[in-house]
C-alpha cells in the first residue's frame, strides 16, 4: 500500500477546492483555511523520499508532525492528533481494521479539541464519517469508503445551519449561521479523496 499516493490524492482534492475553503473561512474566520491545509499536505508530499518506506505507525506519526508544523492554527494540531492516533491503532488493511483505526483517530481529535457534535467543527463531518465506516465493514472496500464519504459530505452540509461554539467562529455567535464550516468541509474533501483513490 502506497500511503503517500493517498496523501497526494488528498492534496489534489484540497488544492482543487482551495479557494472554496478560503471563502468558507472568510465568512466566519480570516480566509486562509484552504491555503493552510494545502501547505500542510504539500509538505508531506514534498518529503516523500524520507517517508515512503516507513512502517504505518511511524509513517503516520511523521505525517502528523509535518501537518502540525505546516498547517498551524487549530487545524494543524487537530489533524495531527488524528494521524498520530491513526498510526497507534493501525493494524491492517481490512475494513474492520481501517474502521477501528479511523474511529480511534476521530475520538482523539474530538477529545483534544473538546468539541461535541453540533458545535460547527470538523467533528460534525468526521464523526459521522467514521461511524459510517464502522457500520459498513461488510461492504466491499470501495462501497465502504463511499459510505464514509457520503456521511462526511452530509455532515459538512449540516454545519451550515449550526451556531459555532468552538474556535474563532464562535465569536460570531448567531452570525455564524448560514455558512458551512471550513474544517468540516475539508474533512469531507479528505473522505472524498479516500473514496476516489481506493
Amino acid at each position, binding site marked *: 500500500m502506497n500511503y503517500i499516493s493517498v496523501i497526494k490524492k488528498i492534496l489534489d482534492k484540497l488544492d482543487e477546492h482551495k479557494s472554496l475553503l478560503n471563502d468558507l473561512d*472568510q465568512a466566519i474566520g480570516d480566509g486562509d483555511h484552504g491555503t493552510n491545509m494545502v501547505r500542510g499536505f504539500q509538505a508531506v508530499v514534498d518529503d516523500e523520499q524520507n517517508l515512503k518506506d516507513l512502517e504505518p505507525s511511524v509513517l503516520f506519526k511523521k505525517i502528523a508532525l509535518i501537518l502540525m508544523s505546516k498547517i*498551524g492554527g*487549530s487545524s494543524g494540531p487537530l489533524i495531527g492528533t488524528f494521524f498520530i492516533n491513526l498510526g497507534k491503532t493501525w493494524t491492517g488493511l481490512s475494513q474492520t481494521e481501517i474502521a477501528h483505526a479511523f474511529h480511534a483517530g476521530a475520538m482523539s481529535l474530538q477529545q483534544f479539541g473538546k468539541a461535541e457534535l453540533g458545535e460547527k467543527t470538523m467533528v460534525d463531518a468526521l464523526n459521522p464519517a467514521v461511524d459510517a465506516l464502522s457500520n459498513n465493514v461488510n461492504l466491499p472496500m470501495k462501497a465502504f469508503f463511499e459510505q464514509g464519504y457520503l456521511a462526511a459530505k452530509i455532515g459538512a452540509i449540516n454545519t451550515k445551519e449550526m451556531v459555532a461554539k468552538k474556535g474563532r467562529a*464562535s465569536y460570531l455567535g448567531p452570525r455564524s449561521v448560514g455558512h458551512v464550516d471550513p474544517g468540516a468541509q475539508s474533512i469531507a474533501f479528505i473522505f472524498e479523496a479516500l473514496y476516489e483513490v481506493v
Partner: protein
Amino acid sequence: MKKFINKIDDIVTEVIEGLVLANPEILSNIPDSKVITRKSINKNKVALISGGGSGHEPAHAGFVGTGMLDAAVFGEIFTSPGPDRIYDAIKTVVGKPGGLILVKNYTGDVMNFEIAADMAKDEGINLETVIINDDIALENSTSTTGKRGIIGTIFVHKIAGAAAEAGLNLQEVKRIAQKAIDNIASFGVSLSGCTVPASGKPGLIVPDGEMEVGLGIHGEPGLHREKQKTADESAEIIMQHIDQYLNLKKGDEVGLIVNGLGGTPMMELNILARKAIKILQAKEIKIIKSFVGNYMTAIDMVGFSFSVIKLDAELKKFLKAKVVTTAMVGME
C-alpha cells in the same frame, strides 16, 4: 490588493529577516525556525515566551528585549505557529529558573503552545502558562471559546517581563502575570476590515458611514455595527464599556493603551488618546503610564482599541520598570 510584498509565501521569513537586520543590537533569530529571541540570552532568569499568528506587528517580536519577552514565535499570517517552532523557542531561551508561556486565548494558539509545552516538560523543562483574555466585547461563556486575547497582552508582557527581569521566581512571575490579566479590559472598533495577503481581499466590508464595534484583531466581525461616530463619541462608548467592567473609582491608578490596528494614522490615535485621558481625568483616575501607537495591529485594518489596566503597587512598579525593545523603550 496593493501591498509592498515580494512573494506571499516569503512574507513571514522576510519580516523576521528585516526585524533582525534593522535591530541587530536587540534581536536575533533562530536559524531555520520562525522565532526571534533577544540578542543576548540570559538563562539565569525566568524566560518569557509568547507569539502567535503574524500580521499583528509590532507584536510580538517588537516586545522582545530587556524587561519584556525572551522569545517571540511567528505563525503564518493570523495562523498560530505549529508546536515545533514554539518548542525551538523554549529550548533556546529557557534555563534552570524555568519559563512562562504567555498565550492569547485563541483555540489554535492554546493547542499549539500546549503541545509544545508538553514536549518540553517531558524533557524536564520547568514551564508554566497563562492565557490572556482581555477582550471585554465577549463574555466568558460556555457557548463560545471565551474572551479573546487582544491588545491588553502588551501590559502582561510588560509587567511579567519586568518581574522576570527583577529576578522573581517562576511561580511569582506567573502570579503577577495572572494578576495583570485579571485587571485588564480592552475593547476595539473599526471602520474597515483588513486584507490577508493569501486571500487578497478584505475579510470584512464596513460600508461608508458605519463602524464595527467590539471586534478582535483578525478582521473578524465584531459585536454589532452602528452608525459611525466622531472620535470623541467613539472614545466615550469604549471607555464606558471599560469603566463598567473594571469598576473604576476616584483615586484608582491605571495604565492606558490607545492602540492602532494598522490602518489608522497616529494623528487620529492622538485625538482618541486626548479624549480617553480627559474622560479618566474627569473621574479623577490617575494615569500612571499611557501608550499611544500601533502595538498590536490587524495588518491594515482602520480601527483602534483602548486597553486599561487597574494597578496596585506591585503592578505599577513593574509597569514603570525599565524596558528596551524595538516597539517600547525607556521608562524610569
